[in-house]
């Protein structure tokens, strides 16, 4: 088990190092001078030079890379070019929206997908199964931003149950904030739940046809008992993989939903920073997301080992 975790850790560190180089280079070669962007069309050349100097844009590529990575390792993500505040603080603020939103959406998605998938698998070919398959097919096909707009029209404009977007801030109260995150979370969760339910169903069907399930039935368990005691646990590996992928996606992929609901989360921060050439913010946020993805994958791999004892010995 320890060796297994150690191996995973090494691959985690290597992934991060490679990612940092790729991120840095791909962003540095983007055309556009942050100073020119900030000062606009009437700026004079000496003003631009003064600003570039202030921002520390004059060093060589190598120097800037090292100072960026070194800073991150010591917890200093640098100063945003446009906002002129520490990047770490900005990311932390935005994280308090994106992270709860991702967890909220994932919880909703799991709560819908597990019962739906298990129910469909346990009555294969029945009306329930056909119904679940049909609805989830629709859920996968509908783009989440379109569904989001539809919900805004119905629940915000017509019924006035929710506001059309925005985020009041956690200091205004937990329930008020959760309410503001509800429509976005549903919009994010729907396609995820559909995918997850389908994976759950097919994984469960696969294990149900395995020999050990037949053995379990042969020793006298009912179909239901065999499913709950033996099949379900063995069907969890592909489901865990999908949940891990989905969590990373929800964290990083909220860009469109965050724009539809104008939530000040990480996705919108990236979007704004790219268009404003606030390179240091883009680099740091992307790096952080890579870190999150790698970390989630690591957690999932450890979870495999917990679910499947065979993996621990590898």
């Amino acid at each position, binding site marked *: 088990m320890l060796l297994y975790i150690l191996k995973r850790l090494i691959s985690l560190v290597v992934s991060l190092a490679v990612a940092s180089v790729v991120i840095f280079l791909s962003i540095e070669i983007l055309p556009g001078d942050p100073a020119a962007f900030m000062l606009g069309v009437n700026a004079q050349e000496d003003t631009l030079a003064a600003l570039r100097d202030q921002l520390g844009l004059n060093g060589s590529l190598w120097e800037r890379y090292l100072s960026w990575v070194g800073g991150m390792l010591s917890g200093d993500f640098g100063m945003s070019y446009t906002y002129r505040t520490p990047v770490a603080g900005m990311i932390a603020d935005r994280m308090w929206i994106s992270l709860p939103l991702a967890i909220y959406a994932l919880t909703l998605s799991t709560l819908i997908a597990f019962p739906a998938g298990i129910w469909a698998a346990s009555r294969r070919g029945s009306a329930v199964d056909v119904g679940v398959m049909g609805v989830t097919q629709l859920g996968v096909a509908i783009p989440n931003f379109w569904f989001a707009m539809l919900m*805004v029209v119905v629940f915000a404009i017509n019924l006035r149950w929710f506001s059309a*977007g925005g985020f009041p801030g956690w200091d205004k109260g937990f329930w008020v904030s959760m309410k503001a995150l509800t429509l976005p979370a549903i919009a994010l969760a729907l396609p995820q739940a559909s995918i997850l339910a389908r994976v759950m169903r097919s994984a469960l069907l696969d294990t149900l046809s395995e020999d050990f399930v037949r053995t379990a039935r042969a020793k006298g368990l009912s179909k239901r008992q065999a499913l709950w005691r033996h099949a379900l646990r063995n069907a969890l590996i592909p489901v865990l993989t999908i949940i891990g992928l989905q969590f990373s996606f929800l964290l990083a992929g909220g860009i469109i939903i965050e724009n539809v609901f104008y939530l000040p989360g990480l996705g919108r921060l990236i979007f704004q920073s790219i268009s404003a050439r606030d390179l240091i913010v883009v680099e740091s946020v992307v790096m952080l997301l890579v870190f999150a993805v790698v970390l989630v994958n690591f957690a999932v791999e450890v979870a495999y080992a917990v679910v499947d004892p065979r993996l621990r010995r590898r």
Partner: protein
Amino acid sequence: MTFRYSTAGLSVAFALTASVAMAQSTGLTVGMQLEPPHLDPTSAAAGAIDSVLYSNVFEGLTRFGPDGSINPGLATSWDISEDGKVYTFHLAEGVTFHDGTTMDAEDVVFSLDRARAEDSVNAQKALFAGIESVEATDPLTVTVTLKTADGNFPFNMAWGDAVIVAPESIENIKTTPIGTGAFKFDNWVQGDSIHLVKNADYWGEPAILEEATFKFISDPTAAFAAMMAEDLDVFVAFPAPENLPQFDADPRFKVLIGSTEGETILAINNKLPPFDNVKVREAIAHAVNRQEIIDGAMFGYGTPIGTHFAPHHPDYVDLTEMSGYDPEKSKALLAEAGVTTPLKVKMTLPPPSYARRGGEIVAAELRAVGIEPEIENVEWAQWLEGTFKGKDYGLTIISHTEPLDINIYARPDYYFQYDNPEFQTLMTDLSAESDPAKRSEMFKQAQETIAKDYVNAYLFQLPLHTVAKVGVEGLWENAPTQATDLTAVSWSQ
């Protein structure tokens, strides 16, 4: 039956709370598309900073009125010396900054010296270039000596880039702006909103609103939804003109159609052959059908212009006739200039919809006369780098939003590379002239010169659409500068 009763009771209760809320409305929630990158109007070009803070939080010596006139600000009056070189500003008495410190002549000296200093990062440093020295004669008098006479100086001092800041609070101005205005900065939830509260100790006419919140919604669809759900009271510069009829028809809202200082032009690279030939530029001007572009790209909103000047300005001359839509003339001019058609040219288009949508229409019109634009959609940063700075383009569409900026045509290295010594002399003379009648005459002459030289093809004045709830009074209809001046805004009963 019981169910019916209870719902009836509920709706009465709702109506009651709603009317109480209406009567006590002293706050305003304003939506806008762009969020300020930081809160220092004196060190960035971003118009969003002025949109939130100008006149509300920060004030200058002079200030723009809703009609673009220059009114007294922190300087209640000023005298100009005989030779037009020395301005003596008399400051208002009893003005304090929001942190309680007094605003006096020393702060003015500090602000102006900071803006024109060697290491200044003021985006409009040119506004201060004519200053020879700034002195505090006494606590309420500032004497500014200019290198040469400049009739424009009070106008320059009204810009958001020339607001008065204090040395005590300058260090944190980007996150905690301390000004002298009728509203105080309260807090900023980055990515979401900025909150201002009324300044109880304001030196002038106090604000009517108790508080104001600016919310930033960049997506046009989200902006529409937020307005419809009544999360917002006002949306300044509403981004989707196609939705305006819907607001207009809704009794809850009103739509204000105003004008901005944005001359939208099809800019031409004057040094790039064959555009160095005035005949070719004239051909482009005649190939463009302004009304078609306004209808197609702006849903019919926008005033056609024939030169680089705002139509609402008293000195504006209507020169649209000189470049009327005439494709036949266009073809003839191209033939006369010896251009072989089809003439391929690179046309860069920045993100705003006037450029992207307008660009497609312009391209179709140009193709009809034998000019083949190759459209390249670029982001702002790319536009600034490649088109504006690198001058690597043939045609581009852009709105010049600075007020009274015809003097950019006197800069030969500016991106359209127009180099006419006569025009440059005219601008030098103009800035030295302080007699209003003569200045007006010179402005008119300047407009005619660039129209005659067909420097660029002039399309339309960018409109300003503001959507507001019916009860909101006192909003600016026009935008003589990028500002959302809330000092006179109130709710009608």
